[in-house]
């Protein structure tokens, strides 16, 4: 994901949107539990989580359709927590698009401006510009049921940008589209949002979508924030097992720290004889229980054991899934545990690839270990 264009002046670091200790409780159940975030201007920020994680509730509170039980929402210096949705400078694009069926595309897009009593010719002007931006100018006189899914989505986007909102909210923007259309639309959407320069928060359960479209991502689970950071950071340095398993796939090896120094750590693993060697220092002390997360693409396979004493183990090939560019190998260890490896098709070179049932060595580099304590 490309870095956003640098806004002029000192506004770059200014916390444009502050979410302070926001909680939403329904009786005893906390849909959103003490969430705090600061989002700078023009950032595209993703709330990522599965259903029930609280991401949609948080979005609705930002839109003004739910009131926080506790906490504050401050946008551009103004506390908007108690403002009703029709008074907030926040606009939302709905998952179902919610285009008004009895109005044309033009009328839909101009609806918000009409509520503000903007003069007719100004509205017409602005609507035309927006429709050009989303390439819907030719279809301006159509009604929603005469549009395809992608066309409806572009109309909904134009409508939510019409009032130049300070904050744009997207609720599962690509959920209703099929896979092929989704990839093209992802980039188109980001282009439009960036060219308009609006601060944007999007909610999704699709990690690819979040990683492609957003500058930063917040992983949510059970109403709480689990980790916040850029896509690279979250993928390479997850802060807990949940994140490591939620974003992409990983192998988790449980063990105990036997040696902890400033520049390296040795872990005794439960699953195999060899020890794990981590090439950097960590906070947990000797004797603590940790997990090492190793991404499948860092795992290599070979027939012979390596020279190193660390970071490898012996197993049998259990299953192979051939996916064209690479194959996913599931290797079964002596204690029954399975290790996943993504092996590029070119890996074996002239050698015959290892087949199912054959013994194989699984190994990974020292710096592939990410140590997790929770």
């Amino acid at each position, binding site marked *: 994901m490309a870095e956003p264009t640098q806004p002029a002046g000192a506004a770059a670091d200014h916390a444009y949107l502050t979410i302070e200790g926001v909680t939403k409780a329904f009786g005893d159940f906390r849909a959103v539990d003490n969430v705090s975030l600061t989002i700078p201007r023009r950032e595209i920020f993703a709330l990522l989580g599965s259903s029930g994680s609280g991401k949609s509730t948080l979005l609705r509170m930002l839109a003004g359709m739910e009131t926080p039980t506790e906490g504050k929402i401050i946008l551009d210096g103004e506390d908007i927590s*108690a*403002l*009703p949705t029709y008074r907030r400078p926040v606009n939302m694009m709905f998952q179902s698009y919610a285009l008004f069926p009895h109005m044309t595309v033009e009328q839909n897009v101009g609806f918000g401006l009409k509520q503000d009593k903007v003069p007719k010719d100004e509205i017409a002007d602005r609507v035309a510009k927006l429709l050009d931006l989303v390439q819907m100018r030719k279809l301006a006189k159509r009604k929603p049921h005469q549009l395809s899914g992608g066309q409806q989505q572009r109309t909904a986007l134009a409508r939510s940008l019409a009032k130049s909102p300070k904050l744009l909210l997207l609720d599962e923007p690509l959920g209703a589209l099929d896979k092929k259309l989704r990839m093209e639309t992802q980039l188109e959407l980001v282009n439009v949002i960036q060219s308009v320069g609006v601060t944007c928060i999007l909610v999704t359960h699709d990690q690819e979508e979040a990683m492609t479209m957003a500058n930063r991502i917040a992983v949510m689970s059970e109403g709480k924030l689990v980790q916040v950071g850029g896509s690279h950071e979250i993928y390479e340095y997850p802060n807990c097992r949940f994140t490591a398993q939620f974003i992409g796939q990983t192998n988790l090896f449980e063990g105990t720290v036997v040696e902890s120094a400033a520049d390296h750590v040795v872990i005794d693993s439960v699953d195999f004889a060899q020890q794990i060697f981590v090439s950097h220092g960590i906070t947990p002390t000797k004797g603590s229980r940790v997990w090492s997360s190793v991404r499948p693409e860092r795992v290599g396979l070979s027939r012979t054991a390596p020279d190193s004493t660390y970071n490898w183990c012996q197993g049998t090939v259990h299953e192979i899934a051939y996916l064209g560019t690479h194959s996913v190998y599931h290797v079964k260890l002596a204690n029954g545990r399975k290790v996943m490896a993504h092996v590029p098709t070119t890996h074996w070179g002239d050698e015959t690839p290892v087949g199912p049932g054959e013994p194989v060595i699984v190994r990974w580099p020292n710096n592939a270990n990410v140590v997790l304590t929770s």
Partner: protein
Amino acid sequence: MMKRWLARFVPKGRTTVTAIPYSWLLVFFVLPFFFVLKISFSEPTIAKPPYTPLVQVTEDTKVTVSLNPAPYRTLTREVDEFATKPWTEARQDSQYLVAYWNAIKLALLTTILTLLIGYPIAYNIARSDDSTRNTLLMLVMIPFWTSFLLRVYAWIGILKDNGVINNILMSLGVIHEPISMLYTPFSVLLGMVYNYLPFMILPLYANLVKLDGRLLEAAEDLGSKPWPTFFQITLPLSRAGIIAGSMMVFIPAVGEYVIPSLLGGGEVVFIGNKLWEDYGVNLNWPQASAVAVVMLALLCGPIIWLHRFEQRRKEQEQ
């Protein structure tokens, strides 16, 4: 400036909006019942209005409330008669109890018959393909939209002594004297079933059409034959429709006036007819009111039960 902001509307706004239909109903639906109750304790007089006031304030500002239980006595006296005199004699003399009984009996029969006749019709329409279903629904709706008075009247022409049926049978030589069909319980029942059939079909249809055909396919796949499938799956799932339809037939049928009047001709008297007689002919409004109160008391149970049933169903659906 709004200090506290609630879900969508300002609380004042919601209350005003609710109050509009609520007050209309309180004034024009609930309040009148209290008047009925009040007048039922009054005495009929020759005056305008033809009943005595309950509360009288005399010259020296003394307030007297006079409750006249006579209208209810008429009814309780009849109950006594049934308890003391031989049944046939009591039945001859009784006016109101017989009328109540006729109404309830025939309303029950009507409900059962419309259910038995209407269910297959509703089922077939629900299970038809789209274009057939559309035509069939239209065919059911047309009589519904046509005046029911006219349709009841049509039966007079068919059932009377020189009516259609008798004419045909006589001209065919099947009978030599007209069969007396009109002004009998049979003609009233026929008229009721005829009139209330759409009121049973439509709720049943609305319920059956939502039934997922795949459930039946799954049952068939598991080896269930048509009739057992019907009794074990379709019927239980259409329970809501059956109850809704039955209540929409039974409750109004008890208070029916027009059908027994036109097709019963004085031979078959419903409680609705007695009420009108007391009101319009005898000008005995208190008596009419008492009759209404008792009718309402009898129907209270079914009405409240239907309401609770519908509420529970709506909650389950949400």
